[in-house]
């Protein structure tokens, strides 16, 4: 066979035998400031250098898949909010579009546009958190507050359109829960104008800071084929130089109508696929999201965006694997219906789960501080890892 199998770890530890000392086992988490939730990583360290890292997950397992089998199709939507609680809109969207494709349902134009707008706003909000917490992981406190200041404005917009600030339950089968209130469109456009210059501010304080670059460039390199093999997706995979975005390459909703660039890592500060590249993809993607929002709002049709089907739907028997591009990557819903009022099976292919699984492959040979940088650059949300 021509292709070699990807070994469990890509990287050999670069410590001469004469310098090796006794290894120390260290439990990082589940309560640790930079595991982004209740992740536990069992580290074996030789001084500051990590020889092996094994993630232990499941501390936030809330039985989403079991729940989904015991409630109606529509009742699952609020549960999807709680998977990746930082980007709930995107989760709603993936599940709902999956159902709509199974039911062969057309959604009205206004609702489609609103779905795209809220999803992209949520993508910005999620990437902002990724940026801010990444700064925290590296030791820079101030950017964190800057991004929260701007995320707040997005949450205000969400509050206005659906009444919730974190768990929206907004995108419903056949449409959206509420139509946008008067003046909402203008407020979003206003936010876009406000947001564009802010990206420069983040770049000034964090992205191009010398120490930040030193800390992140050439660290935690995930080569493209390793990334694909490990199922890494989204900005983390694009950071490795893979030009792949489901919004463009496997389009859903009305994403095929918009003009935007897919950002990939180019190794500007070091090697392609290092943590800086992954970080940079997120920064540049926010600008692209703003572009999409502008285009969607420009063509926002009049009419009613509320859902047109009854709440108590029955999905025809069959199965479908629906994947969408969330801020963390490829979120897949594998839905099996037996034609009844409740799902037979809803399996979530969680991007954070797959992204995290690459950690044991890149961790050996790095320092503890680098491990923190790598976990941060994968941008995991434990709610989604454990479901």
């Amino acid at each position: 066979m021509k292709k070699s199998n990807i070994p469990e770890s890509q990287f050999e530890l670069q410590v001469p035998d004469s310098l090796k000392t006794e290894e120390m086992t260290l439990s990082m988490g589940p309560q640790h400031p930079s595991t982004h939730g209740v992740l536990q990583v069992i580290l074996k360290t030789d001084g500051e250098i990590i020889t092996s890292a094994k993630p232990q997950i499941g501390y936030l397992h809330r039985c989403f898949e079991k729940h989904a089998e015991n409630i109606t199709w529509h009742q699952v939507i609020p549960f999807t909010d709680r998977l990746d609680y930082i980007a709930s809109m995107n989760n709603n969207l993936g599940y709902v579009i999956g159902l709509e494709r199974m039911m062969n349902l057309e959604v009205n134009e206004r609702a489609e546009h609103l779905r795209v707008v809220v999803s992209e706003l949520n993508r910005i909000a999620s990437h902002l958190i990724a940026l801010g917490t990444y700064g925290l992981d590296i030791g820079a406190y101030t950017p964190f507050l800057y991004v929260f200041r701007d995320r707040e404005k997005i949450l205000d917009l969400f509050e206005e359109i659906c009444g919730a600030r974190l768990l929206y339950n907004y995108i419903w089968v056949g449409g959206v829960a509420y139509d946008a209130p008067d003046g909402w469109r203008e407020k979003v456009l206003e936010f876009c104008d406000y947001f564009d210059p802010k990206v420069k501010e983040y770049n000034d304080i964090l992205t191009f800071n010398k120490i930040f670059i030193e800390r992140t460039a050439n660290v935690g390199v995930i080569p493209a084929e390793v990334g694909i093999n490990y199922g890494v997706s989204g900005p983390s995979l694009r950071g490795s130089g893979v030009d792949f975005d489901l919004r463009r390459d496997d389009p859903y909703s009305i994403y095929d109508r918009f003009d935007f660039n897919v950002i990939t890592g180019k190794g500007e500060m070091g090697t392609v696929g290092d943590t800086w590249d992954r970080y940079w993809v997120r920064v540049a993607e926010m600008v692209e999201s703003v572009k999409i929002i502008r285009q969607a709002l420009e063509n926002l049709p009049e009419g009613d965006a509320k859902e047109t089907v009854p709440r108590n739907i029955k999905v025809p028997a069959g199965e479908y694997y629906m994947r969408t591009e969330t801020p963390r990557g490829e979120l897949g819903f594998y839905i099996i219906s037996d034609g009844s009022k409740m799902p037979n099976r809803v399996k979530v292919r969680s991007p954070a789960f797959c992204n995290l699984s690459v950690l044991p492959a890149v961790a050996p040979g790095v320092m503890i501080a680098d491990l923190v940088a790598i976990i941060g650059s994968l941008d995991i949300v434990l709610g989604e890892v454990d479901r």
Partner: protein
Amino acid sequence: MEPLVQFFFNLLPFLSDWPEWLALTVIGVAAAIMMFGFIAIFALIAIWLERKISGHMQDRLGPMEVGGWHGWAQTIADTVKLLVKEDIIPEKADRPLFKLAPMIVFTAALSGFAVLPWSSEFIPADLDVGLLYILSISSFAVIGILMGGWSSNNKWSLYGAMRGVSQVVSYEIPAALALLAVIMSAGTMSMRGLVMAQSGNILDWNVFNFFPLTTIAFFIYFIASLAEVNRTPFDLPEGESELVGGFHTEYSAMRFAFFFLGEYANMFVVSAIAATVFLGGWLPPFEALGFIPGPLWFVGKALLLVFVQMWLRWTLPRLRVDQLMYTCWKVLTPFSMAIILLIGLWKVL
């Protein structure tokens, strides 16, 4: 006679009638209490200031509620909280060492105040080797850090302690070498003598004296001092996002407060050294401003440097261990050695 004793005799003339041993004891205790009071008050203000500064840098207000005006009483409230909080000692900790560690750290910070020249009259102890004393006493804190990290019986604390020790010990070298450059030009190690050597106007200050050599020495000292007091970008021993809390992870209540107090006292000490050695101590920048008392100049200059430390903390990310060592051994140390060499040549020629 010691300037301090003279100062007290001038202040309270009846002291000179007392027997000498009694007068000296009273003066010594009074000076120590004054220093302790100064540290406590300085820490209260500095912590409040740090919160306000960080707040404004981060586009928010910082504490606004406690005490009314801009939350001025916030740190006092926090101190009370720390005082009444339960003091937790981990079961498997090495108790005597665990209890001793914060005291050592704080004592080392307090001892540094003994030789700071507040003005030409008020120097608690004008040692001939003042600078040497302060360098050696401040490295004493390392033992406290190591004890705290080791006795906590926590691997994260141990990492913090090991990082702290390697960092402080390494950075003492560029710091000492940078100061040595100035000692060579001034020809004295007495804090008072160092300030006296800079009298004149702002251009006679050591920082501009052998321009640009001493200016570089000043920056080297300042960077190294950041590392010595574990401030960002060199806060690796605490490194919250990596090591949870570093060497003081297991400490709580008043013992934690002592570490905290020691850190702020140290911030002031290193800034005060920089102000004394490089920025003319209590001297005004221009003769015309001589009407403002010396201690105000001294404290003002030190506070300015403390502000810069805070400013850096809220701007910069943290270095990694190997980068930290690289900066020390391959950048700062060679540069400071070159400066010593050049100043030596300059003096000889």
